[in-house]
């Protein structure tokens, strides 16, 4: 791995041509999934699919910072809710604004919050960043609760249009399609980071930050890139939420379930590569939905927490790690 240390110059997330076949494959998979959903023609399938893909996006976004650089972000709900409430506010200001535009705005806002939090706390030991993000979730919730324009503590209603634009059919199909698109973007970015000098820089920070700094890795800059990207993607994942739930209040928008799931899924799947969060989200998301239908909705939220604790103790490399060791 010695030659990798030379590749410390930051070249951004430009993967060159290498990432193109992977991205095309992702798009193909997304198209197949969507076509399958259309063929099933069940809105239940779309509602479930939306949640699972949302967790793929959230988990991968968390993993870009947590898994690649080793900095733990507990404030997922803060970024996620910033995205969701940007949509509420924008929808109220300009009701005709198309959803993709709101997603981009949400991503930019959440990314800026990530940059700010990172800038203030990332010079210190990693644990201070984690604590600050925990507190960030509480403070953003306080701000939203006191902000009457987006409903305050009472919550906000968003009318879901009956028919999806462009593709026809139910609106939830459009939401699912957008979420699939975000999934493709996030996964392509994550894999491109892994294969680029940026990813080697992140790994150097994770393995030994002092040594990385000493050998010329611009650690603060890389950490800020990771926090911004990670926060931005979480905000994007939250943007369609108001249209999905149609009623959003601070208690549900800041539910701890989002944070636990987004951390548990990469840890269960494996934090080393882009595949881990996908495996974790599909397995845990599927299991939760199964338990919600068969037992109760109270039990299904416990599952992610219990599995996460079990995995970090017994299988620190996650499912992907278990599989790799066997080969």
């Amino acid at each position, binding site marked *: 791995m010695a030659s990798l240390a030379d590749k410390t110059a930051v070249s951004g997330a430009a993967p060159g041509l290498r990432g193109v076949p992977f991205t095309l494959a992702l798009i193909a998979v997304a198209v197949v999934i969507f076509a399958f959903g259309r063929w099933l023609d069940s809105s239940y399938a779309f509602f479930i699919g939306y949640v699972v893909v949302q967790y793929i996006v959230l988990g991968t976004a968390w993993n870009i910072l947590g898994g690649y650089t080793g900095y733990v972000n507990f404030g997922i709900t803060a970024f996620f809710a910033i995205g969701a409430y940007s949509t509420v506010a924008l929808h109220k200001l300009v009701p005709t604004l198309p959803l993709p535009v709101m997603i981009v705005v949400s991503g930019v806002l959440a990314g800026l919050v990530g940059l700010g939090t990172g800038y203030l706390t990332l010079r*210190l030991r990693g644990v201070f960043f984690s*604590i*600050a993000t925990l*507190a960030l979730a509480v403070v953003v919730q*306080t701000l939203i609760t*006191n902000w009457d324009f987006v409903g305050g503590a009472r919550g906000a209603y968003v009318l879901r249009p009956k028919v999806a634009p462009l593709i026809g059919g139910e609106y939830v199909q459009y939401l699912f399609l957008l979420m699939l698109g975000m999934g493709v973007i996030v996964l392509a970015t994550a894999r491109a980071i892994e294969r680029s000098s940026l990813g080697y820089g992140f790994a150097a920070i994770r393995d030994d930050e002092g040594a990385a700094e000493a050998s010329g890795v611009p650690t603060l800059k890389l950490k800020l890139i990771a926090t911004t990207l990670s926060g931005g993607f979480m905000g994007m994942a939250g943007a369609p939420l108001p249209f999905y739930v149609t009623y959003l209040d601070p208690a549900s928008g800041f539910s701890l379930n989002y944070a636990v799931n987004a951390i548990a899924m990469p*840890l269960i799947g494996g934090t080393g590569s882009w595949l881990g969060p996908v495996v974790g989200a599909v397995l845990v998301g599927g299991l939760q939905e199964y338990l919600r239908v068969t037992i109760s909705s109270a039990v299904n939220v416990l599952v992610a927490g219990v599995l996460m*604790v079990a995995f970090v*103790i017994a299988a620190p490399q996650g499912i992907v790690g278990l599989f790799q060791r066997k080969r």
Partner: protein
Amino acid sequence: MAVSLDLLMNAVISGLLLGGFYAAVSVGVAISFGLLDVVNIAHPAFILLGSYVAFIGNTVFGIDPILAAAIMLPAFYLLGMALYQVYYVAFERRDDQSLRGLSFFFGVLFITEVTLVLIFGVDYRTVQAPYIGPSLNLGLFDLPLRLLVPFLVSMVMVVGLQLFLSRTFVGRAVQAVAQDQQALRLMAANPTKIKRIAFGLSIATASLAGACLIIIQPVEPSIGREYIGRIFAICVLGGLGSFPGMVIAAMTLGIAESLTATFFGPSWAPAVSFGILLVTLAVRPSGILGR
């Protein structure tokens, strides 16, 4: 402006009393995070567990909530020792504290909270005690006993722990672990054993702090999260591992929150601790009385 002065006076007094209680809430983390370097973000969940234990003791057995908490101290101590043992075997020994160790405590926090929701539901719970309700009127201001009793209990606990750490053999050993584990090992002492005792103590404080919490305000399982920001703001502002610094920081936060609640409305109070935490981390990460 007589009314305003009166208001200010009462806000400062109740802030001071509240701050004393915050010291009891934070003292467990001052031990685990400040002295042992174990970032136990699940501590508020154990405080809530303490609240519900006091609630059961009070409503089922009809005993005083603080007495119930005192009876349960050994159980919380053992729980803390067991938790540290798991943490040590799974993370500290593997030198994998940051990512997975933090996630472990986050998982423990979540599991405890959801379990409490499953058992007690999300309704607010209260306790009955003779000192909830009346207040001492001292002419200029009122001293609500509901705040005064937890304040006194908290101060006794914090001072007791400080004396334990500075005067007894085991207490000094805990401070030695905080300073240099390697040196302690060379003296043929087992740092793991001492850390287990200290972590047990830190969780034991959650029992009394929980009883104080349910005396001060009605409790439901998710309010523990509000305390995460407060606890760590206090510990960081006070300087990690310094008890006097922690008490000063707790009083400062109590007064700041009380003033905010009085003049801007109670719904803004949770944001105060985050502001203090962020400013401290950005300006003076070692706190006011840092080691």
